[in-house]
């Protein structure tokens, strides 16, 4: 029967087990991944199973790295996310977390849009490092993604988004993630997209400041193609700042909503 070992097609006898294959292909492998899941007990293989053999601590070549990373994605998911093109508008607390999450997921292509540079005040919740201070957020995020998953294609645009450039900039993406800080920019982007590009999927956010309950942050499907995440009321203001945990909760909702749209799970 046919199976895949480290992404290569391999023919083995019926009844062959995962550990039989490890013993003949890579005896020193200490991690055995079967169909995206690390196994510790031996199991008989079936036709088309995907087996990945990893030696802990061994630095793989770039080609090996790609197949080893693909192995960790749930089968059926990778094929779809690998074809998706997602635009993230705003690379602050929401956008930087969403970009990292989608990169780890193995998204095909990202368009990162922001006009700003990394500042010390961003480090309380955004995915940048001290060494990025002063750097354009688009460049800093592109660098971070290349260190996490070098197989994600990344386009960047250093522009301030307004109603005149939205349709040009976002023309080719499948899904738009609204990750602005400023409420007027949120409204402008979403109003413009809903009117001029009604077929575009939009995943926005509103209300995630403070340390209020986790459980008031929800995902709502506002219209067919428009999802809105947050508690809807917790505004960032003096005495109620933005902090990593709750901003990350909202960013997690947004990233998972993007994944669900790609996987054609359109309900919330």
């Amino acid at each position, binding site marked *: 029967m046919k199976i895949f070992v480290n992404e290569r097609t391999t023919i083995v006898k019926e009844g062959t087990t995962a550990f039989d294959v490890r013993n003949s292909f890579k005896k020193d492998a200490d991690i055995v991944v079967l169909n995206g899941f690390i196994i510790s007990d031996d199991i008989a293989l079936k036709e088309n199973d995907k087996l990945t053999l990893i030696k802990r601590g061994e630095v793989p070549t770039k080609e090996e790295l790609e197949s080893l990373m693909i192995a960790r994605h749930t089968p059926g998911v990778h094929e779809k996310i690998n074809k998706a093109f997602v635009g993230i508008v705003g690379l602050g607390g929401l956008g930087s977390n969403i970009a990292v999450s989608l990169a780890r997921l193995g998204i095909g292509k990202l368009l990162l849009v922001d006009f700003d540079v990394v500042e010390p005040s961003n480090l309380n919740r955004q995915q940048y490092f001290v060494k990025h201070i002063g750097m354009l957020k688009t460049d800093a995020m592109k660098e971070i993604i290349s260190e996490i998953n070098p197989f994600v294609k990344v386009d960047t645009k250093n522009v301030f988004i307004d109603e005149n450039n939205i349709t040009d900039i976002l023309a080719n993406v499948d899904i738009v993630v609204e990750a602005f*800080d400023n409420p007027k920019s949120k*409204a402008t982007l979403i109003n413009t997209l809903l009117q001029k590009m009604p077929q575009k999927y939009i995943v926005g956010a509103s209300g995630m*400041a403070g340390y209020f309950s986790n459980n008031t942050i929800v995902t709502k499907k506002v219209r067919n193609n428009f999802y809105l995440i947050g508690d*809807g009321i917790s*505004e960032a203001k003096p005495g109620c700042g933005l902090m990593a945990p709750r901003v990350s909760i909202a960013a997690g909702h947004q990233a998972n909503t993007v994944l669900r749209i790609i996987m054609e799970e359109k309900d919330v």
Partner: protein
Amino acid sequence: MLINGKEMNFDENITIEKLLEKLNLNRDKVVVEVNFKIVPKEKYAEHILNHEDKIEIISFVGGG
């Protein structure tokens, strides 16, 4: 009229702009949908609502 699923009473001939004022909402921080259609901002001052309309107002707060 039905606003965000809640029944509310307003004067006849109220415009979207006046409704937003009464609800204390900033016109630049909202998306307004009347009978499932998005209303462009430049129409807020002239768009008169009537009592059978189903109105959804999505209002954004800062932070991200």
